Structure formats: C-alpha cells, structure tokens
C-alpha cells in the first residue's frame, strides 16, 4: 500500500472514530490521568521510604500522610483506567459495528456485476475477518500506543525531575533494546517465510487428501500420502524450530538490555547517593522507572506491526464500502398493472467493454407467450435473465414491459412482476414457511398450503417433523436437490406474478421427481408470459419463439419449424442433442 493511500485510509478511519468524539476525548483525558498517577506512585513510594531511615529514625506522621496520598493516587488510577478501558471498548466496538452496517448497506446496493465478479468468500472475509483484525489493531492502538507514548514521555520527565544525569544515561542506553529487537526480527523473517511456505504446502496436501479421502481409501493409497505428509512435516519441523527459536530471542535480549540499564542506574545512583546527590528513596523510584521504562518501547513496536495490519484491513473494508452502487431508482414509476408484454428493441449488451456479446437484439413478446432459450451449456443463457430482471443494465437499446422502459420503473416493481426459478436453487436459513412466503408475506395458511399442493411440495413438507415450521439450515440444509427445487417453485406459485423466468435444468434430479417438477412448471405457466431456459424437446417445440444462443450471443430466433428450415445452428444443435441419442439408445 502506498504512503498516500495509507494516509487516505487513515483519514477515513479517523472520520469514523470522530463520531465518538465524547468517548474519545474522555478516553484521552483518562489516559493522561492514568499515566501521570501511575508514574507519580513510585515518587511517593520513594518519599515514604526516605522517611524510614533506620532504627528510631522513622518519621511516622509523614509516612502515614504519604501512604494515604499513595492510596488516593492508586484509587485514581483504578477509576481512570477503568473508564479509559470502557471508552476504548465503546469506540472500538462502535466503529466495528458502524463499519459492518455500512458494508452491509453497500452489499444490498451493489450492482450484480461486482458480486458476480468477486468471490463470496472474499467479500464475507472483508465484512467479518478484516473488520475484526482492524478492531483488534484499533483497540491495541488506543490502549497501548497512546498510553505507551505518554508513559515514555512521562517517565523521562519524572526521571529528569529526580536527576537529569542518570536520566541521560537511561535515554542513551534504551535504543540498544530496540536495535536488538530489530536485528532479531530481521534474522527470523526468512525462517518465518520458509515456515509459512511449507505450512501452505502441507495444508494443500491435507486439503486434497482429506477432501478426496473416500477415493483414497477405496484404493488403499493411505501409505503413499502418509509418506508425502511425513516428508513435508519433517521439513516444517526444521523451519518452525528455527523461526520459533529466533523470534523467541527477542524477549530475553531486550530484558538483558533492560538489566544493563538497571545496573547502570544502580551504579550511578549509588555514587550520587553517597555524594548526597539523591536520596535512597529517589534511587528506589529511579530503579522502578528503569525497570518499566523499556516495556512501552516493546509494546509500541508490537503495536506498529499490528496497526500496519489494521490499516491494510481497513483499506479492504473501505474498498467495499466505496464501491459504486446501482443507479438509484427513487424517482422511477411504481408500475402496478403489468399485463405481461415484453419488448426488446436494438438491445446491446456485454459484460466487458472490449467484447460485444449481444448486438441489435429485437424481440416482441405478447401476453401469455412462451419464449424458449436453447443452446449448448455455457452459452450465456443467464445473460437474458440478468437483463430482464435488471440485474444488469443494457448498454444500448431498450427493454420495455407493458410499454414502459424498465429503466423508468422501480426495480422492486419490475422484479415483483417476474417469478424466477433458477437452476441453482437458493433457500435461506429459517423455516420452510419463511422461504415460501418470501414473495407474499401476508399469505394465509390456506393460501400457503394450496400453493404447496399445486406445486407438489406438500407431499414431503407434511412428512417433515414440524411441517411448514421445520427449520432448514443454510442453503436448504438436509433437503434433497429435488425438494429444494420444488420449494422454489412453490414460492413462485404463491406469488403468482404475471411473468415467469424458469430454468428447466433438472440434471441433479431423478426422472420421477423430474416428472413432478415438470407438472408443477406446467401449472405455473398457465396464462403467463414465460421465458424458459429449455432442456426438454416438448417445451422447445411448443414455444412461441425459440432463442438460440451460442457463446453468449443470440444467433437465431424463430419457432421450431422456421429454425429447422433455416438450416442453421439450431438444426445442428437439435440433431446432435436429440437425434444422436435416439440412434444410440435403440442400437
């Protein structure tokens, strides 16, 4: 990430944090109070010790006064630190929540182009994992970075107040520990890199062999894999040992430097004390400072890597949040009386700018007509669905529904005019009922059952333990592919829209269920304008218009007879897909 981009991201983060101005200023105030109090405690303790010189030389009244002061100060630390922690929590979790809300708002408005073009896993990990990492970094940044810097500055000031000369020694020596940490990090970096590479190699092997474990076992090939695994495992052991050992040197080394500082303070402090430069109590406070002085340095260097990471994650979240949303449709018409006529004129479309997919496509569909879309697998039959549902916008020409350009209609109005059953069935987690009433929230129990019956799903639903209220897991959970498809049909049956988009593909369904689904489709289509991605010859032959697609392009259109006469691609397709099978199967 470039420096400029980092700055931009940082500005955006601050912008989000700024919403919590009150908590933020309170947190900072409390941090200052905490640090000052914490640093003042050793001074007070040193003073108390100075009142306890030796046998018969104890100034009790002053000792008590000082002890009471210490008590007040530590109660101050307790309160201010707790308030600070709470403020930090409020800010961090608040920003986290805001970011997730923002990201989700954007997901609902993103053009399909973005969602189709990015893996779900990637988007989900931005919303979940990246936000979490960012929150961790932010929290650490607040609690440790700010207090760390304050502690260092405060310690130096307090030390100077006691004795400037020893302070100078301490300040000069501490960079040693930073240099140590840096050298070790540099040294262990290569080992870490090799470790993670080998780990990746091993994970790939594990992934492959566990996912294919049944095949592997059916051939008795376990030994081969165990051997390969062991070879990688042994290498991993070697690299891990190096990486872990080198990196674990950081702590002892910085502690050693710290001990050196401590010894130097002891010598110089002792010498000064003999000469009366400082008191014994002051020496004790000094030693206590020296002991804690390097700690914030180590923390800050940890926080810096953590923060770097957080900024990278925040960058990924902002990328998502700042994606251009779909064009707004607020001022569009809310079309209600849709009769089912569709007109496409001079439609032009392509997913990318450099390759033209559909050019000058014209089609006039009257109410109640059936349009079959045929073509080899992967010919882009979904493209037409994308355009009709306005998941994607045409690049030229227009699509009109009941005489209205779909770009002038509210998306919600357009989409509720269509009933869509896709080949890839999608059900949400929840009850069967939740899924069925998606299209008609206020449907009565009778209506629901009626829809289930006429789409042949009632048979299996009533057998489920809780009927309509049976919970199904993510993506249909335990339902079979056929049952899921029937539910998707039921959903549309209940909605009863004037137009349909159906994907007939039933490859994962056995023939007997398929017959039922076929019947359900037929019932659904009665009197409706329907666009069908057709696989069955009967559907194709009965269609009013057949659109023949190839490589994303609509290359022919007409009815069955016309297209056969035209002697083009449809004829070849027809012969290869249907006639050949006939010959083969009867031989």
């Amino acid at each position, binding site marked *: 990430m470039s420096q400029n981009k980092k700055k931009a991201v940082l500005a955006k983060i601050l912008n989000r944090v700024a919403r919590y101005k009150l908590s933020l200023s309170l947190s900072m105030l409390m941090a200052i109070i905490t640090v000052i109090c914490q640093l003042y405690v050793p001074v007070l303790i040193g003073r108390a010790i100075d*009142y306890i010189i030796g*046998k018969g030389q104890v100034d009790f009244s002053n000792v008590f006064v000082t002890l009471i002061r210490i008590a007040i100060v530590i109660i101050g630390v307790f309160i201010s630190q707790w308030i600070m922690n709470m403020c930090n929590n409020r800010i961090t979790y608040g920003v986290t929540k805001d970011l997730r809300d923002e990201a989700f708002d954007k997901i609902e408005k993103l053009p399909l182009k973005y969602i189709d073009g990015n893996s779900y896993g990637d988007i989900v990990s931005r919303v979940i994992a990246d936000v979490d990492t960012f929150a961790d970094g932010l929290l650490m940044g607040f609690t440790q970075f700010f207090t760390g810097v304050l502690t260092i500055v405060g310690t130096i000031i307090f030390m100077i107040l006691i004795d400037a000369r020893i302070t100078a020694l301490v300040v000069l020596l501490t960079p040693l520990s930073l240099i140590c940490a840096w050298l070790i990090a540099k040294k262990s970096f290569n080992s870490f890199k090799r470790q993670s590479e080998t780990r990746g190699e091993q994970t790939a092997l594990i992934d492959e062999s566990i996912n294919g474990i049944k095949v592997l076992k059916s051939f008795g090939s376990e030994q081969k894999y165990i051997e390969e*695994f062991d070879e990688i495992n042994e290498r*991993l052991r070697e690299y891990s040992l190096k990486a872990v050992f080198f990196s674990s040197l950081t702590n002892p080394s910085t502690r050693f430097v710290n001990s050196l500082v401590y010894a130097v303070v002891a010598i110089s402090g002792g010498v000064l004390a003999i000469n009366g430069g400082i008191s014994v109590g002051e020496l004790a406070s000094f030693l206590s400072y020296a002991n804690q002085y390097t700690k914030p340095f180590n923390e800050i260097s940890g926080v810096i890597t953590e923060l770097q990471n957080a900024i990278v994650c925040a960058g990924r979240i902002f990328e998502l949040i700042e994606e251009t949303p779909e064009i707004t449709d607020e001022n569009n018409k809310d079309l209600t009386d849709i009769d089912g006529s569709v007109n496409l004129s001079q439609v032009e479309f392509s997913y990318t700018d450099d390759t033209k997919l559909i050019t000058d496509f014209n089609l006039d569909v009257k109410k109640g007509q059936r349009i079959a879309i045929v073509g080899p697998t992967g010919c882009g039959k979904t493209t037409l669905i994308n355009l009709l549902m306005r998941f994607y916008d045409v690049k030229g020409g227009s699509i009109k529904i009941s005489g209205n350009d779909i770009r002038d209609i509210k998306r919600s109005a357009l989409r509720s005019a269509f009933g869509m059953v896709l080949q890839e069935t999608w059900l949400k987690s929840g009850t069967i009922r939740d899924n069925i009433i998606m299209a008609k929230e206020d449907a009565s129990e009778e209506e629901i059952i009626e829809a289930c019956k006429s789409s042949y799903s009632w048979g299996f639903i009533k057998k489920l333990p809780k009927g309509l209220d049976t919970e199904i897991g993510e993506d249909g959970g335990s339902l079979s592919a056929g049952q899921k498809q029937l539910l998707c049909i039921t959903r549309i049956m209940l909605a009863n829209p004037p137009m349909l988009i159906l994907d007939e593909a039933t490859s994962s369904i056995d*023939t007997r269920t398929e017959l039922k689904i076929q019947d359900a489709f037929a019932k659904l289509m009665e009197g409706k304008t329907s666009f069908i991605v057709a696989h069955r010859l009967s559907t194709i032959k009965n269609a009013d218009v057949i659109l023949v697609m190839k490589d994303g392009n609509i290359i022919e259109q007409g009815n069955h007879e016309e297209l056969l006469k035209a002697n083009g691609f449809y004829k070849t397709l027809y012969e290869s897909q249907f006639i050949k099978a006939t010959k083969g199967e009867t031989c």
Partner: protein
Amino acid sequence: MKMILRYLEQLKKECVLAPLFKMLEAIFELFVPLVVSQIIDKGIANKDMAFIMKCSLMLIILAIIGLASSITAQYFSAKAAIGGATKMRHSLYEHILSLSFTDYDELGTSTLITRLTSDINQIQNGINLVLRLFLRSPFIVFGAMIMAFTIDFKEALVFVVTIPVLAVIVFGIMAITRPMYKEVQNKLDKVLLTTRENLTGVRVIRAFNKQKKENIRFKNENQDLNKLQRVVGRISGLMNPLTYIIVNGGIIALIYVGAFKVNSGDLTQGQVVALYNYMSQILVELIKLANLIITVTKALACASRVENVFNINSSMEFKKLSDKYDTKSDETKENVAKFELRHASLCYKGNSENSITDINLVANKGDMIGIIGGTGSGKTSVANLISRFYDATSGSVLIDGVNIKDIPRERLLSKVSVCMQKAVLFSGTVRENLTFGRTDISDETLERAINISQSKEFLSKKEGYLDYMINQGAKNLSGGQKQRLNIARAIAANPEILILDDCSSALDYATDAALRNAIVRDLSDVTTVIISQRAASLLNCNKIIVLDDGKVVGMGNHEELLKSCSIYKEIYDSQFSTNTDNKNGGVN
C-alpha cells in the same frame, strides 16, 4: 491434556530442561532486589564506593547468566513444542486416514482439516508458551514470596494475603468472561451467515425485493453482537485496574509494616526497598500471565478437539492378513457366486430409516449387473456394501463365498474396485493418479485402462501423456475427461469386481456406449456392477435391479423388466418418450 503429555513423552529431556532454565533465570532475577538492598544498606550507608561497584558488577553478571539460561530455555521449549506438534500432526493424519466412511460422514471433512492445521498450530503455541512463560510466572510470584520470608516473616504475610486475592481476581474474571466470549463467537457466526446468504442468494433476494428486510435482520444481529461485546469488554476491562490497585495496596501495607519494623531496628531501609521491588515484580508478571492464559485456554480447547478425533476408533475392523485365509479361500471357486448379498440392509449412522432394506443379489464371475432407480433410491448404498465402505446393518455380504467381514483389507482392495460418482483427481501426473501409490502397476496395465476408459483420445493430445501434470482440483481437465480418468484408475487396479457408480454422466452418448462396449469386450472375466439413472446405459447388463425407496422392486433383464416392473417402465418411457418425439421431429 493427557494427549499432549503423551506426545511430549519422548521429549521429556526438553520438557524438563526448558522450565528448569526458566527457573534459573527467575532465581537470578530474584537476587537483583537483594543486591540493590545491599547497595543501599552497606554501599550508600557506609559510603563504600568499591562495594557499590562490586554490587553493580554482580548485577551485570546476574543479567548475563539470566540471558544465557533464558536462551537455553527458549531453545529447549521450542524444540519440545515443535517436536511434539510434529509428531501429533503425523499421528493425527495417520489416524484420520484409518477411520471408516461412517466416521467421515459423521465428522465432516472440513473439521478434520482444521484439526490438522490450525488446531495443532495453536497447541504448538500453547506448549511453547507454557514451557517458557507459564511456569516462569509462578516461579517469580512464589519466589518473590519466599524471598520476602527470608527478609521478614511479618512482611511476608502481606504477600501471603495479596497473592491469593490476585489469583481470585485473575481467574475469576476469566471464568466469567470465557462463556461470554463463546457467545460473542456465536453471534458473530450469525452475522457471517446473514452476510453470506445475502451474497449467495443475491438474485433471489432482489427478485423478491427483500433487501430492506434482510438489512433490518443484519442490523439487529450486528447490534446484538455489539451489545454483548461491550458487556464482556466492561468486565475484562476491570482486570488491569483491579490487579494494579491490589498490588499497590500490598505495597502500602509493606511500607506501613516496614515503618514500624525499621523503627524498632528489625528491618533496614534497603530491605524495605527490596520488598517493594518484589511486589512490583509480581505485578509485571501477572500482566504477562493474564495475556498468556488466553493463549493457553485456546490451546487447551484445541487440544480437546484434537483429542476427540483421536478418541474415535474406526467403526470398522478388518481381519489381519493371515496365511490361513490365503490358502483356504483365495483360489477362485467356480461353483461359488462372485459376490452375494443376503437380506442385506444398510442404515447410515444418524439416519432413522434404512437406505436399503433386505436386498438379495447373486452375481457370478463375468456377470454384468445393472442397478437403476431414482435419486435416493439406494443405488450407491448397494455399492457401498459390496466394497465394504460400510457394513450391512443386518444381513450379510459374501465375496467368493466368504463373509466380507472375514476378508483382510488388502485382499478386498485387490478384489473390488469402485469408481465413485464424483470424479476426484489429485494434483500430480496422470500416472500418479492412475497408480495412486500402488507400485505394482505396469505401464501396459495403465495403457489398457486408458484404452477401455476411452481416455486415449484426449490423453494422447496432452503434453507428456502419462506424465501430464494435473493441477489441484483438476481444473485443467474437463468434466468428461475427469470422469474417464476416474474410470481408468478403477480399471487399472485389475479388480475381480468393478463397480461403476453413475460415473459417466458427463460423457456424451457415443463415448458412453464405446466405454460400455469396451468393458464387455475386454473385461469379460470381471464381474461388473453398473449404476445409472439412464436405462440406456444398462442395456448390456444380463441382470438389472430396479430400486425404489431402498427396496428391490424388479430384477431381470431389460425385456423382462419392461413387462414385469412398472417403475422400470416408467423410467424407461420418461427417457425414451423424448426419442419418439425426436423421430417425428427428425422426419419433419
């Protein structure tokens, strides 16, 4: 916990040495306040410069010894942690590979992968931290207390009170927040699910205009998560302030008691400073400990998950390969059926109903058996019994007249070969995929398998032929090519019984027919079981079994079934009615 110890057994030396050197380091650290008190009481009080120098030198020597012992400890603990984790990973992998299909169904593969990777890594971190840091803290805490006792009994009592109070606070807060953190995780999972669903179902959600409703659902879940996070944060945010106030309260008590003791001459000023230093050391250690405990509890949770996998004994046992079996039953008896199912039923674990019930089937050498039926009718379950991927819940399965449970696994593998429905290939060369670890397969055998499976035509166009590299997930092959290599792999095993479980669905009709013809021609000795949804694929079979809802509803050859079995006729008609249409269409 026990399991971890088992893997550290051979690393006893490291496991003892690491904490030992840590203890040494801690002891030297504990000497430091003593030296300092000497500086104050003798050096400064007597204005003895040389003594202060000597003491400071002592401090440096202590630091060097501390550094040396600490580095040694780090080395041994890294060695122990990584050595243990490496062994654990190996054993777990081996163990997972030894489980049965039922076990895999129950566990799910993604769980197994996380156990092997991130869980064991967490355990490794845990062991490492425990060895080098977790033990250091008690050393320092209790060491400081003991040192206090050597200085003054009454002062040491302050430590005796402070330490348990600190322990109660640290562990108490952890005990309270741990279940809450789990709940936070659950709530986060919900947020994740909603996000995922809104991506996978984006078309449906938008088609039904459910964006607003989904948005409200998400915001509520997110709000829930946020609330709980803040509650947990409020409690765990108490940890640092509380420990701070208690340790410093202890220091106040130390100085208070110390004031009287010094006044009466029982204690010196330097000793009070030393006691104060000991108390401060405890605070520093406690903060470290608190951070550590999170890592350690995580590691323990991972360890128990790994242990759960270790505790699963394979639900299927095989007879050992013994001579007795070899001589008695390995020669093929002509009069005995090649395989036979007798009243066999199979109910998968966790299911309430049988997947297949009371199946009877006899196949002789060289027979070609077809199994047909709708999805979920139990076709694959029959194959699962013949290959002993699963054991029959009732009834029995015999191969060459021997109960399948009495056949050693090695024998069974060489007799039965299955080509599964889902084509799975591994990254590596074609040869590696076909031989699959079996070293005794010659190139001629491979060549034959490639020919029969109709792979020759596309494979000869691939660079390197048998040495063509297949990448992960076999993304450089088409669906049909994958299926053909899958079939080739099963044939290359040279089995006596070959099961093809609906594994040619992606092949076009002509190739599928050529495949079946090649099997009839070249594998006439092999008893073949062909499972399919297409009636046409089973036309060569001399016996076809029709399954419906796990039961045999028809058995016989094609003609017989057309007459006697209504379900078979239904399936056949549904597939061939298209053809009648076609013929008409073709004439047009």
